[in-house]
């Protein structure tokens, strides 16, 4: 940005989160703006459409009480930036970056534009380090790796944030090092925020955590800023300070709604279900900030929470998210109702980077086929279950009946691990025990070698019967 600070008296119009200036000169796109009005705190804004005839400013603070004819608009000549540094760890900020923990503003190491810049694809390093979350459904079948973006698709009232908290508490990087955590609360309730923050505190991770909190009662315009602040802070911690960073954003649904609100205010042609046509690109500008950079030690692993409106996975928010992220962990209302905790439905869940994170030296050699077998048997059992609902269990073939029993046990004992944390080897054993109950002919995904090795291991050390 080549311009310097200019001040305009009076704006032409204000509508929702937008402020319009006429005949402003040398305005730059993305320029940071301060809007001053007597008797009110300064508001921050950003130029989103720079025009000689009309310049549009998006406010980043609540517009209630804004009187366009009485304001002073200061164009600062610089982009919207934020302070980043190691001293942000242990701190809590509002959705626009002001300290909310009673401490003074951090000094930081540098300031960075919050919009970020696209990472050059040839500079990306391939994510391939297994992260043990302690959650079997993830570690076994939807493995998370360092540098991945893996959202949780939740539903209204489903424990999406609870799962994210478990991952934050339980996550261990390959060499056992702890993750730094950056959490952006975006439009979630004060209670949800509190529960999450308390869990981080209780797990002893607070000193390596940065919080950006935009709660439901806070201005919705801030929702567009909070995740960008979080990711900008995370980029510093990961790529400058060399830390392994886990970023949790809850809830992207509120973010998208704020984006829609802004689009409507700008009178844009809406896309599907009223969401802007550029929502894919906008979401990508956030999600793609996860990753690993060649030659730099740190990483950003991103876990956004998406609440599927009406549990509908084809809704534009989960849909566009799924098109950008590297898989998804899907929660099921039915499993939740049946008390299975965590209620992860592994069938629609997917980790696209799983293959590079598992196997010899990472988890164990036969992880892939073992996981494929669990998956196939469970899928068959689920199909058998829906068929049994129509024709009765008696109409099923014997193999289908076995698969049905398997599915029940799998949900109860494997997925529904409760609050206990399982190491990857405990997860492996839990899975094997279920497979042990099936005859060889039902285990088509297992190679002869893997099957025989399991038999040999069982013969050598007969497993204790699992507690009923």
């Amino acid at each position, binding site marked *: *940005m*080549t311009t310097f600070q200019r001040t305009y008296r009076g704006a032409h119009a204000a509508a929702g989160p937008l402020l319009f200036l006429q005949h*402003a*000169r*040398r*305005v*730059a*796109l*993305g*320029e940071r703006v301060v809007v001053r009005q007597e008797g009110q705190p300064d508001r921050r804004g950003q130029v*989103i*459409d*720079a*025009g*000689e*005839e009309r310049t549009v400013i998006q406010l980043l603070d609540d517009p209630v009480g804004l009187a366009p004819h009485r304001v002073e608009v200061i164009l600062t000549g610089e982009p919207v930036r934020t302070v980043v540094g190691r001293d942000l760890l242990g701190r809590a900020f509002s959705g626009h970056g002001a300290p909310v923990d009673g401490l003074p503003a951090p000094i930081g190491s540098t300031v960075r*534009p919050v919009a970020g*810049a696209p*990472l*050059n*694809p*040839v*500079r*990306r390093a*391939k*994510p391939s380090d297994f992260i043990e979350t302690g959650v079997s459904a993830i570690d076994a079948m939807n493995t998370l790796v360092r540098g991945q973006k893996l959202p949780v698709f939740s539903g209204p009232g489903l424990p999406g944030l609870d799962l994210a908290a478990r991952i934050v508490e339980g996550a261990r990087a390959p060499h056992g090092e702890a993750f730094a955590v950056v959490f952006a609360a975006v439009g979630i309730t004060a209670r949800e925020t509190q529960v999450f923050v308390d869990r981080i505190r209780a797990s002893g991770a607070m000193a390596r955590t940065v919080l950006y909190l935009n709660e439901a009662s806070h201005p919705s315009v801030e929702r567009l800023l909070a995740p960008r602040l979080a990711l900008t802070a995370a980029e510093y911690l990961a790529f400058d300070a060399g830390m392994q960073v886990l970023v949790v954003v809850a809830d992207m649904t509120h973010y998208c709604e704020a984006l829609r609100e802004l689009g409507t205010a700008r009178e844009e*042609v809406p*896309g*599907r279900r009223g969401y802007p*046509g*550029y929502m*894919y*690109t906008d979401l*990508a*500008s956030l999600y*793609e*900030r996860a*990753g690993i*950079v*060649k030659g*730099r030690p740190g990483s950003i692993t991103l876990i956004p929470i998406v609440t599927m409106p009406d549990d509908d996975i*084809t809704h*534009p928010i989960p*849909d566009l998210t*799924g*098109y950008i992220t590297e898989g*998804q962990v899907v929660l099921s209302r039915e499993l939740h109702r049946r008390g299975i905790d965590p209620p992860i439905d592994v*069938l629609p869940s997917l980790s*696209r980077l799983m*293959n590079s994170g598992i196997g010899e030296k990472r988890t164990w050699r036969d992880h892939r086929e073992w996981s*494929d077998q669990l998956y196939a048997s469970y*899928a068959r059992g689920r199909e058998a279950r829906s*068929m049994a609902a*129509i*024709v*009765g269990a*008696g*109409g*099923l073939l014997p193999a289908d009946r076995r698969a049905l029993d398997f599915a029940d046990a799998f949900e109860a004992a494997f997925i529904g691990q409760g609050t206990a944390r399982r190491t990857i080897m405990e997860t492996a054993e839990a899975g094997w025990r279920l497979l042990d109950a099936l005859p060889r002919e039902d285990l*088509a995904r297992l190679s002869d070698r893997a099957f025989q090795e399991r038999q040999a291991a069982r013969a050598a050390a007969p497993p204790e019967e699992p507690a009923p």
Partner: protein
Amino acid sequence: MSAARIVRVAGALVEARPMEGALYELAYVGTRRLLGEIVRQVGDTATIQVYEETNGLALGEPVDTAGTSLTAHLGPGLLGAVLDGTGRPLARLAEAGGDFIGEGVSAPTLDPGRRWAFTPAVAAGTQVRGGDVLGTVEETEGLTHAILVPPRTCGTVTAIAAGEYSCEDTLGTLDDGTPLRLAHRWPIRVPRPIAARLATRRPFVTGQRVFDLLFPVAEGGACAVPGGFGTGKTIIEQSLARFADADIIVYVGCGERGNEMTDVLTEFPALVDPRTGRPVMDRSVLIVNTSNMPVAAREASIYLGVTVAEYYRDQGRRVALMIDSTSRWAEALREMGARLQEMPGEEGYPTYLASRLSLFFERAAVARAQGAPEREGAVTIIGAISPPGGDFSEPVTQASLRVTGAMWALDASLAQQRHYPAVDWDSSFSLYADQVSPWFAEHAGRDWEEIRHYLIALLQRERELRDIASLVGPDALEDEDRFVMNVAWIIRDVLLRQSAFHPHDARSSIAKTYAMASAAVLAARTGRDALARGIPAARLDLQGVRHALSVLRDAPDDEVEVQAGRAVAAATGIASGVAR
């Protein structure tokens, strides 16, 4: 320098005044001279779509026109390159600007510092026309790059000499003074001229059983691959790029993930092309404009891709162009159209979406190239589509289907069952099947066509039976019907599934594909015959065939023959306990 100044910046669009440009003329925007393209000219105001990040551009900054449209620089050095949507090599951008892509950094597509040994094929005094081969350089080991007279150029060569040249050097001249070089420029939105479109019977052999067998695409054809998220489009595009039988692969990552390109970049240099023994990277050009890179450049990326593909076609190469994903291109078009305040058509897409798509897919062809010596080449286009909500009734899928000759429809429920490639055999189609069957009959097995039909009929029957079984229970089915379901299950689970990650299954040679398909059909026929002869279903045992087929599937190429024999024996033997 002109007096034009920026009067508006909105997203990727900039308006400048006073300016008298031409449509699609390039412009340099702002003090950092960002590259853009004029998309509208009204009175003295030009609207420019800018290929780089526009944040920070300010009113009053200068704008210049370049006098040309966006061109591709075509010459040796494209193979192995990784370019952004406008043709800037990403590795050079990283050297100049660091890990993150900054603004206003530029680098030429072809490295001017690299020199190539040129061998002339014509002598001074020769009359040449556009498309004539002037000579050759060896671009990658074993791959000869024909240096062409640029289209629409003609004259008599007054000088030409062998030697080491960079793409900027002059290696000869025409009588009118036109310098001859290793490389030339071509506007990406204009199809390169050809002498004639040709008909072909040759398939584009993919190495994926379900495509080669059930939904083959002819060389020079176009195929749409729609599928919801996670259904396997990218894996298909990447598998084809690795294993398909083509001389050159142009892969366009259009508005997709950065990490997917990392995958390609780590694997392609190490992966050996079974046909040449050389790294796959040596036959590939990657064009990468990820979802977080500027949308205007994303819009340009597919045109750059097809222009590069046509250029190699004109050298007589069989080129495959992979686009992942066409939808992201269409969305870029929509984004720009909305900012131009054009009247939107269906789902907000501009009304010219369908015509642009047709123009694009029509650039797929088998062609006789212009110029001498005579050369035939092909561009085959495989375009992934990402329909919102996985619903194929949307405009991009529908408009593509009208101009592509095949569709590989990916189904979310198959993907959920981890049946990959998740091709739905009910709704997928190929209009090329009859055209290419004779080639398969000649090169794979004489009864190829018959086997194909048998498989299709069997799968159809199975679907009907499954609907019935879901109402009455599988227990209530007739013996023959249950047998059909069991065989169909093996066909689906072993023959049509293919793991992209298995060292020997990832690519299936047509010999293996044929061997597996014919053994499966043999098993089906043997079993049905046995049942017709009154042999009870309980005596038919498919475990052996299933096992033999799995072994055959996972066999390396040099063991296919042996394992194929075993599979045939197993198929004949399913009723052996009774027959003998």
